[in-house]
């Protein structure tokens, strides 16, 4: 049954050094506040799992939280490179980063297998690509009924999955709408879970394409308004495209990155403080 706790407490209670951690949200509803809290608490040696690493993993990698990254597309969407990710892969800064890469379909199917308590998923694709050569977690499999050759990818069972949602209700059910991405599968495949939400409401309103995650499937819930910034929350706020563009310059330079993180993340109490801090910088 879901329990409402402060984000600081939720991270301290559920995420340990060395854990495999999936923070999901496909462009929409990215759990930025939770990523920052892991950085503030100095988590390290994490295996970071995420289809699209985005700015949050760029920050976590640059701050030395990660030993390994499992992913399928590591860019700054619509802008260009994730410079901290690239620096780690190209120059082992701040530390060597082991990578395990798939296609989106491969990652999605791994989560489905995890949520279904299966050891692997079956799919078409990967044949003839070099991914097959560099990623050990892709292997051919033969259909026992037809003899057809297919590809297998192993299950994904993160120690912890963290997602951001628009709402929880009083009983701890969680609602997401708009682009729902891979959040349901990522949550159901995990051993433990944390959901940050924009707000807690008495009861959900019906909305098109809404996904409700029942309270029994949810671990901790933390209320963090604007907790997905610079990503967006449909119905609450838009994507801060200017921030994604600004990140290109901040992330490009090691010194500037560290200074920014120290000032705006480590130097702030929580995500509300972080948002206040970057707003002040824009005003100046």
């Amino acid at each position, binding site marked *: 049954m879901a329990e409402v706790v402060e984000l600081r407490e939720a991270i301290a209670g559920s995420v340990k050094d060395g854990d495999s951690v999936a923070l999901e949200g496909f462009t929409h509803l990215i759990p930025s506040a939770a990523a920052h809290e892991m950085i503030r608490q100095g988590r390290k040696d994490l295996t970071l799992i995420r289809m699209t690493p985005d700015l949050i993993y760029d920050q976590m990698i640059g701050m030395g939280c990660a030993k390994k990254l499992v992913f399928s597309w590591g860019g700054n969407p619509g802008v260009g490179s994730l410079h901290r990710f690239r620096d780690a892969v190209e120059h082992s800064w701040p530390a060597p980063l082991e990578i395990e890469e798939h296609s989106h379909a491969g990652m999605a199917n791994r989560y489905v297998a995890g949520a279904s308590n299966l050891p692997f998923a079956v799919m078409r694709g990967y044949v003839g690509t070099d991914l097959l050569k560099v990623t050990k977690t892709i292997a051919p499999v033969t259909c026992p009924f037809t003899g057809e050759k297919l590809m297998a990818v192993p299950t994904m069972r993160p120690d912890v999955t963290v997602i951001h949602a628009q709402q929880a209700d009083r009983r701890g059910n969680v609602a997401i709408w708009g682009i729902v*991405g891979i959040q*349901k599968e990522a949550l159901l495949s995990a051993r433990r879970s944390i959901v940050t939400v924009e707000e807690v409401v008495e009861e959900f309103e019906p909305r*098109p394409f809404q996904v409700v995650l029942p309270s029994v499937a949810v671990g901790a819930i933390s209320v963090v308004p604007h907790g997905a910034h610079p990503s967006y929350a449909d119905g609450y706020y*838009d994507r801060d495209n200017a921030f994604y563009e600004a990140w290109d310059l901040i992330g490009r330079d090691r010194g500037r990155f560290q200074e920014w993180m120290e000032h705006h993340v480590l130097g702030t109490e929580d995500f509300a403080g972080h948002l206040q801090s970057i707003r002040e910088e824009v005003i100046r």
Partner: protein
Amino acid sequence: MTSTEGKVGGANGSYTTDEIMTVAASRELEDGVVCFVGIGLPSEAANLAKATHAPGCVLVYESGTIGAKPDVLPLSIGDGVLAKRADSVVPVPEVFNYWLQAGRIDVGFLGAAQIDPFANINTTVVGPYDSPKVRLPGAGGAPEIAASAKEVIIMLRQKPRAFVEELSFVTSVGHGKGGNSREELGYAGAGPTVVITDLGVLRPDPETKELTLVALHPGATVEAAREATGWELKVADEIATTDPPIDEELEVLRDLRARTEARRKGTAG
């Protein structure tokens, strides 16, 4: 007609080489097709097609939006504008398994960092995998789009760094090593049928599957296309010239870009 600073003069006034590339790519999309759209250049071309000659085409994005009708161009593949008026929004595993893998996509529309003579695509690394010179974003949805869409349209700007004889890494399979090697890999889809660049149009040779220059945009030359290609480019015996953009195409495209820019500025900060 020379192309200085990417500008091309024409009967309909001037337009840029990027504009003619987008217009030419949009014309490849027939009305009514179900199109899986990559972000960036393909998204612009697909939306131009939908707003002009192909209002009935169904745009599918990998974020799970089916029948998307964005009023401005999305900056990312999962912008809210894609979900807003979509016919349906499905979870990511469904869009790849039930739609792409199940053969429900007529056309896959992809960009690329690098392409080889058989239209294989690299978006992973330049240089050795373990110590890359440049680490690119990686596969995303492209390998399965290239595998399972009934046909694939690729668009990218033509330059020696992008058109390379041998890829450091094959992320998505086009025509493999040429001939019938794609079929031998067991892929259902026909693979890339056309590559649109800022200089012209390339199509795979029916037998060898090697990309062959079949058309040039107004103002572009075979010489320029050869110089922009990192291998000895095959050129068709008869080269067509792309029809210049008509007024409607340019107006719709520029309007789309202007609205996109205005929206981006509006939500900034």
